[in-house]
């Protein structure tokens, strides 16, 4: 266990941490936009599973990773639109309909996988791209600048999300709709359009998050392979106080804990720490965060359907 603190291992943990942050980041940033507009989409996990399966199947059949990624995003869009319709038009209870969306994604991805693929070989996913010059810096280069394209895209999404939310007219509308939809409505902002946009964007991001598992991290599909990442992404939005930077820090914290538990399992040959305990760490952290986190920034209209006649 003492080798855990060697430079090589620490570098390895940091590298894996950044790499594993990809699905959390895509899913949580997308979910953050949905929640800022006032809709909790608990179905992220189900959308991720469908995205993961779609990407894997397309990559297996066509060999084109970008096409596979696009298809996963498209499936995410469809499921995001469905969730928008359920929460905006039908004004359904969001917690329950989200659970439905999750179970739908879980069941359908397993069914389609058994029917069309069964057991298959791993695909060749996106390969690490070393950034010239930066990638050559010792330690730093190894940790930050030698990742696959999806990792770079995920981190690029953070400043874009900050800019959109805080510096654009669209962002202003999103912030207003999530806090006081009737105010936005009275100024001619369409609450439905904004919520559709945000929830659908969240769906696309969840689809891509799922694809990042099968196209870059694991290169395989298994039933229920997301094992809670989608739910943790929802929790990360609370943890991050509904801000892109907060959500990113949360995603990094979780992926580092994840990386740490993977390395512990590898290095701990004498089984001093039971592997179940290591596996449990991210989930314990999720519960702790939700129980003790403060919710001062929670959008006031979160989970509340908007109806012009009702106020």
């Amino acid at each position: 266990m003492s080798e855990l603190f060697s430079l090589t291992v620490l570098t390895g943990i940091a590298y894996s941490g950044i790499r594993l942050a990809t699905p959390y980041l895509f899913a949580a940033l997308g979910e953050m936009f949905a929640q800022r507009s006032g809709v909790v989409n608990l179905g992220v996990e189900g959308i991720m599973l469908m995205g993961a399966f779609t990407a894997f199947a397309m990559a297996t059949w066509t060999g084109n990773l970008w096409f596979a990624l696009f298809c996963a995003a498209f499936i995410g869009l469809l499921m995001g639109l469905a969730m928008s319709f359920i929460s905006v038009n039908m004004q359904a209870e969001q917690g329950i309909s989200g659970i439905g969306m999750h179970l739908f994604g879980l069941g359908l991805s397993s069914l389609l996988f058994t029917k069309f693929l069964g057991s298959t070989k791993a695909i060749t996913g996106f390969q690490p791209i070393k950034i010239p010059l930066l990638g050559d810096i010792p330690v730093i280069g190894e940790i930050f600048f030698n990742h696959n394209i999806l990792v770079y895209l995920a981190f690029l999404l953070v400043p874009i999300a900050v800019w959109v939310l805080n510096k654009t007219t669209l962002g202003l509308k999103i912030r207003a709709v999530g806090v006081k939809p009737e105010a936005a409505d009275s100024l001619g902002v369409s609450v439905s359009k904004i919520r559709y946009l945000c929830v659908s964007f969240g769906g696309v991001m969840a689809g891509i998050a799922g694809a990042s598992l099968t196209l870059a991290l694991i290169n395989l599909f298994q039933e229920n392979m997301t094992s809670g990442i989608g739910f943790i992404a929802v929790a990360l939005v609370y943890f991050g106080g509904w801000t892109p930077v907060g959500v990113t820090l949360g995603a990094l914290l979780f992926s580092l804990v994840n990386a740490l538990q993977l390395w512990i399992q590898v290095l701990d040959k004498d089984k001093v720490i039971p592997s179940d305990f290591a596996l449990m760490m991210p989930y314990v952290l999720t519960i702790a965060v939700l129980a003790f986190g403060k919710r001062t920034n929670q959008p006031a209209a979160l989970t509340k359907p908007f109806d012009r006649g009702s106020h």
Partner: protein
Amino acid sequence: MAHGSKLMALNSQRMSILLPTGQPRIESMRMINITKRFPGVLANDKVNFDVKAGEIHALLGENGAGKSTLMRQLGGLYRPDGGEIHLDGKPVQFKSPADSIQRGIGMIHQHFMLVPTLTVAENVALGLPSSRGLQLDLDKVSQKIEKLAQRYGLKIHPDAYVWQLSVGEQQRVEIMKALYRGAALLALDEPTAVLTPQEVDDLFKVLRGMAADGHALIFISHKLHEIIDISHRVTVMRDSKVVATHPTAGSTKTQLAREMVGREVILQYDKTPYKPGAAMLRIEDLVVMGDRGQKAVHDVSLIVREGEIFGIAGVSGNGQRELAEALTGLRPVQTGRVVVAGQELTHAKPAQRIAAGQSAIPEERMREGVVKEFSVSENLILQDHGHEPYSRNIFLNFDAIAKESKRLIDEFRVKTPSAETPIKNLSGGNIQKVIMAREINRKPRVLICAQPTRGVDIGASEYIHQRLLEQRSAGTATLLISEDLDELLALSDRIAVMFDGKIMSIIDRDKATVERLGLLMAGVKA
């Protein structure tokens, strides 16, 4: 600004005089034979209403008379089922709020349409295109706000967050939003409901200035003296119809009240002489925390005696709600003491307080006063169902409940189809009567009464006031918390003013005037 130039182009055919904001005036707006139905209700029945540039036209009516529905059609929130709206003689249709804003119409809603987590400038810019395309141009917005603020005498800081602002300041932001969008016609729905008398004066100055500049203004209210003070013409609505339109000059409060209610209304009550007895409610150095962990009630001490109505005045949000909740056992007391009829009840549960002879009429009548889905009779026995005559052992006595419900419904003149009707189907005034019936039937020694007539029509208000005065004659000690100064002055024997959680001063009724109370409500020690 792209939005402004589009509006200019739209109006360029007419040779129009420009307002100081650079927008063309709306010389006349007419609503002709407007009819609006909701399931089971005819909200507007062939309503005619018009306003001209430079005029302040008051729209008077009780809650539910159809004023807000009429204005919502002007604001594009609802579409009329029949009738036409004309601007400068031409028919127009408003399909959405954006349509109506585009035509130069601004609405100030009764409940402010502001996003508390955004700044003033962000609230103003919301929904407008930016000069920088996708990116916000808040610096330019702020500059323009400051220019308009100066022109119209609206004190506003563009960078302040709305949650930090007082109610009066928030209202100025609402007016600014409308002016910024080039409103030539401004409709204000009950704009004075939440203001102190001094803030009302400031608002009226701004409104008179706007009218003098050529804006057309619609002023919706049910406060008669304000309408006489500010408006040039008045239209009175009753039961979804217009009953009168005439110049305000020469109208009296009595005449307007008669038009609004449809019968003679008592504006002054006969009170029996003030004969205070023993101290029934004693509050000593009470400290209560608010929702955000601040001291909402700050060292409050007062005594309410038998046969006395003790009024508490103050602008909403100065600790009155927390005080009432602490006295009814819904909010923990930090320090201090509460004694009811000689019994220490500082930390008592609601049931213990009821047993000690205390009744309460809560501010949030739909949330804390009744169970919405329950029937009228179930609501009447809400606290007393556990003992005779309503129940024996564990069984409810339905005969006794029905008999007693019928008696209370008759005695308190509750208008309800039956005792079994769900209470949520009743009007605000009738729900309040049910609560009064339940609370007074218990023959309380102490009555905590918060905002008893808020949102209640004049007829029911009058009745509720009479019942409160009856209780006073019967020896009940009443603590009356209200934001309505007319109500406090009509009923109270002594009035305390709360500001920032503290009692500013306790004044005898004969020394209390609207001006003096208004200054105290604004935190100015007289």
